[in-house]
C-alpha cells in the first residue's frame, strides 16, 4: 500500500471551507449550530500523478461534507487503499494514522469483502498543549486531516477504533464514511481527546437489510478547545439497527457542538434507531450545543433519542467529599475514567500511545502512569510504531 503525506507547515495561502459538518436537516441559522467553517491551506499541486481511491469510494459521504472531502482529495498525496479478502479474519489491525504535528492530510479507503472481519484503527495524534493558559486559535497551517471511507460487504464485520489526541495549537479535520451491506455489522469507538479546533464527521449508510451499527463516542473538551461533531446514520435497509451512545466532559472554556442524525428512510421496515448523549459540564465558560435529529418517512420503524446535559450534582459531590475528594479531584476522576476507557479499548500500540500521551497532558503524568500500569505496560511514544 502506498503511503505518502503532504506537509502543510509553512504554507501561507489559506482558503475557507464554509460548510463543514452540515447535518442532513438544519435549523435556525442564528443558533450557529448547522455547520462549522474552517480556514485551511490552499491545496498545492506537486506536479505528480497521485494514487486515487477506486471511484466507488467517492460515493461514500463522510459527514464532513463534500467541500471538505474535495479539499482532502486535492491536498493529499497518494491515497491509501486496503482490501480485506472475502471470508477472512484479519487479526492485525489496519492502522490509518495521521501526524498532526507534521500537518498530514490522509485519504484512505478500506474494502471489507463479504463475510470478512477486520479491525480498523484511526489515530490522529500530535504533541501536547502549548505553554500558558492564553486562548489559542490554530492557524490554517496547523491543519491536519484524516479521511477514511469503509465499504463493508454482505455479512462483513468491522471493528473501528478512532483516537484523536493532539494539543490546542492544532486544527484537525476527521471524516469517516461507511456503507454496510446486508447483514454487515459495524461497531465503532470514538475517543476525541483533544485538539485546538477539531471537526469530526461520521456518516453511515446502513444500505443492506439487517445491517447494524453501534457507535460509542466519547470526548473531553477543555481550555479553549473547539470540538465539532456530525454523526449521521442513514437507515435504508430492512431491519437495520443503529445505536449511538455519546458521552463527554466539557471543561474550562471548551466549546462543543454535537449533531446526531438518525434518518429512517421509506422501505426500511422493522428498523430501529437509538441515540443518547450524556454531557458532564465542569467548566464555567463552556458552550455546549447539541442537535439530536430523527428523520422518518416510514411508519414501521422506531426512533428514539435522549439527551442529558448537566454537572455533577451537589449530592454526588458531597458523597465524594465525604470520602476525601475535593471538587477538582472528583472531576479529575471523571476525566480519568474517559482515558481509562480509551486505553483499555486501544487495540494496538499507536492508539494506546496516543491515548496515554494525551492522558499525561490532561490528567497528569502520574495518572497516565497509573493507567499504563493498570494494563501492565510502560507508556511509549506514538511516533514509533509501524503503520499500514
Amino acid at each position, binding site marked *: 500500500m502506498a503511503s505518502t503525506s503532504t506537509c502543510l507547515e509553512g504554507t501561507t495561502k489559506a482558503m475557507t471551507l464554509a460548510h463543514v459538518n452540515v447535518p442532513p436537516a438544519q435549523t435556525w*441559522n442564528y*443558533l450557529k449550530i448547522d455547520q462549522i467553517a474552517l480556514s485551511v491551506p490552499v491545496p498545492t499541486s506537486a506536479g505528480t500523478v497521485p494514487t486515487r481511491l477506486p471511484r466507488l469510494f467517492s460515493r461514500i459521504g463522510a459527514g464532513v461534507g463534500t467541500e471538505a472531502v474535495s479539499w482532502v482529495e486535492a491536498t493529499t498525496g497518494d491515497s491509501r487503499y486496503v482490501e480485506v479478502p472475502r471470508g477472512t479474519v484479519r487479526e492485525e489491525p489496519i492502522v490509518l494514522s495521521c501526524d498532526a504535528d507534521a500537518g498530514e492530510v490522509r485519504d484512505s479507503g478500506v474494502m471489507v469483502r463479504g463475510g470478512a472481519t477486520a479491525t480498523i484503527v484511526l489515530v490522529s495524534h500530535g504533541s501536547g498543549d502549548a505553554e500558558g493558559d492564553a486562548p489559542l486559535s490554530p492557524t490554517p497551517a496547523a491543519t491536519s486531516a484524516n479521511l477514511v471511507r469503509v465499504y463493508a460487504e454482505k455479512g462483513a464485520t468491522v471493528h473501528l477504533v478512532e483516537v484523536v489526541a493532539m494539543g490546542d495549537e492544532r486544527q484537525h479535520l476527521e471524516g469517516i464514511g461507511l456503507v454496510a451491506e446486508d447483514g454487515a455489522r459495524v461497531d465503532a469507538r470514538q475517543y476525541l481527546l483533544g485538539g485546538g479546533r477539531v471537526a469530526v464527521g461520521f456518516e453511515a449508510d446502513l444500505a443492506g437489510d439487517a445491517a447494524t451499527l453501534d457507535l460509542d463516542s466519547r470526548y473531553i473538551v477543555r481550555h479553549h478547545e473547539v470540538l465539532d461533531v456530525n454523526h449521521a446514520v442513514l437507515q435504508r435497509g430492512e431491519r437495520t439497527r443503529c445505536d449511538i451512545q455519546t458521552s463527554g466532559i466539557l471543561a474550562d472554556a471548551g466549546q462543543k457542538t454535537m449533531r446526531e442524525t438518525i434518518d429512517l428512510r421509506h422501505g426500511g421496515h422493522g428498523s430501529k434507531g437509538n441515540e443518547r448523549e450524556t454531557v458532564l459540564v465542569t467548566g464555567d465558560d463552556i458552550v455546549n450545543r447539541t442537535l439530536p435529529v430523527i428523520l422518518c*418517512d416510514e*411508519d414501521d420503524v422506531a*426512533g428514539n433519542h435522549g439527551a442529558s446535559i448537566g454537572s455533577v450534582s451537589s449530592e454526588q459531590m458531597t458523597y465524594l467529599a465525604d470520602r476525601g475528594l475535593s471538587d477538582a479531584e472528583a472531576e479529575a476522576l471523571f476525566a480519568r475514567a474517559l482515558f481509562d476507557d480509551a486505553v483499555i479499548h486501544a487495540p494496538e500500540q499507536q492508539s494506546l500511545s496516543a491515548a496515554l500521551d494525551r492522558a499525561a497532558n490532561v490528567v497528569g503524568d502520574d495518572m497516565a502512569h497509573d493507567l499504563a500500569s493498570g494494563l501492565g505496560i510502560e507508556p511509549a511514544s506514538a511516533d514509533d510504531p509501524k503503520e499500514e
Partner: protein
Amino acid sequence: MADEKDRTNARPEVDERGRSKVQDVDRSLYDFVKSEEGYERYADGLTPDIVRSISAKKDEPDWMLKMRLEALERFHDIDMAPNWGPDTSGLNMDDISTYVSPKTKQARDWNDVPADIKDTFERLGIPQAERDSLAGVGAQYDSEIVYHNMREEVAKQGVVYTTIEDAIHDPQWEPVVRKYFGTLIPMTDHKFAALHYAVWSGGSFVYVPEGVSLDYPLQSYFRLNASGAGQFEHTLIVVEPGANLHFIEGCSAPKYYEANLHAGAVELFVGDGARLRYSTIENWSKNMYNLNTKRARVGADATMEWVSGSFGSHVSYLYPTTILQGDRSVCEYTGITFSGANQDLDTGCKVILNGRDTRASMSAKSISKDGGVNTFRSSVVVGRHADNARCTVSCQSLMLDDISRSDTIPAMDVRNRTASVGHEATIGRISDDTILYLMSRGCSEEEARTMVVNGFANPVSKELPLEYAVEMNNLIKLEMEGAIG
C-alpha cells in the same frame, strides 16, 4: 349525533398491510363561505401606498406609520432561510390582498353584528361559548374586529380587553401600546414578522392590573372568509405582577384553491409573580400559509403556559417562544400537531432561560397521515447566568402510514455549568403488541386503536377548558376515526 354514531360503528377500511384507513376530516363545520359583496378590499400586492392606506384608514399616529413603512422595506430586504423549513414558493404576495374588511363597525352586542357574520360565529359556537364560559370575546372577520365585549365585573377590576386600534386612540393606553408594541418581536426577526408590521390590522390589547385574577378566560377568534387574502392581527397582552389570565385564541377559514396567508404576531409580557396561559386551537383551511410569531417575556416567579393544537394550514411555521428573564420563572408548553394530505407543518417551541432557578418543560406530540409532513423544531438556550436552570423537552411522533413524514429537530445551546437539560424523542407507530394486549382484554380492534390515539392526545386536551377540549377532541376524532393502523 346520528352521523357520529354511524361513524363510530363503521368498520374501518383496511389496506393490504393491515393498516386501517383514516378518513379525511369533515370540515363542513368550518368550510362555509360568505359573500364578500360590499366589502372593502385593497388591491393585491404590497406597495407603500397600500401600507399608507391601511394606516390612514386607522387614523394612526406618525410613529406607527413610520414603523409600517420601515417594516415594508425590511420585508423586501429579508429572505427566507434557504436551508430549512417548508416550501413557501406557492405564496405570491402579488396575489394576496392585505386588507379586506366588511363594512360594519365594531359591535358590543351580537345583535348589532351583520347577519351573515353573526351566522358565521354562531356556527363556530363563539356566542354560546361567551355565554357559558368566557370573561370576554373578540371576534375578527378578515382584517377587522367586528365584535368585542367583556363582562362588566371583569371591567370593574380594571381589566382592559380591546382592539389594538382602540388602545392606540385612547390617551391612557397609547403610551402603553407604544412602550410594548414590536419590542418583543422585532420587525427584523424574520421576513414575515416584517410583513406583519407593515400591514397589521386587528387583534387584541389586553391589560390585567396587578394582583387581578380572572376566573374565566378571554377569547379571540379569527375568521378569514376572503379568498386570496391575508390576516395580520396583532395581540398584545400585559399581565402585571401577581395577576392571572387565561387567553384563548381560535381560528378557522373556508378552503379555497388560492393561497391565503396568516402572519399574525402575539407579544406577551408576564410580570413578576404573574401567570398567563395562552391556548390556541388552530384550524385554518388547508390552503393557508400560517407564518405566525408568538413570544412571551416572563418576570421573576412568574409562569407562562402554552397549550397548542394545530390541525389546519397547508404550510405552518409556528414556534411560540418564551424568554424566562426573571429568576424562578417557569414555562410549560404542551402541543399537538396533526398533519394530513397536502400539509407541511413545521411547529414546535423555543425557550431562552436567562434567570436563575428557571424551569421549562415542553411536551410535543404529532400525528402524521396521508402523506402529511410534521416537523417538530425546538430550541433551548441556557444563558451564562442561568444558574440551576432546568429544562426538559419531550417529543412523541405517531406515524399512521408509510407515505407520511415526521422529523424531530431539537437544538440545545447551554452555557451554564449548573444547568440541567434533558431531551427525549420517539417516533413510531402503534405497536401490534399494544393492540393485541387491549384486544385480549375485550376491546375490539377499533376500540383499542381509538383508545391508544385518545391516550396519545389526552395530555394536550386535558389542559384546555372543557368546551375547547371537546372541540379539539372532535377535531382529532374526525381526523382519526376509522381507527389507525
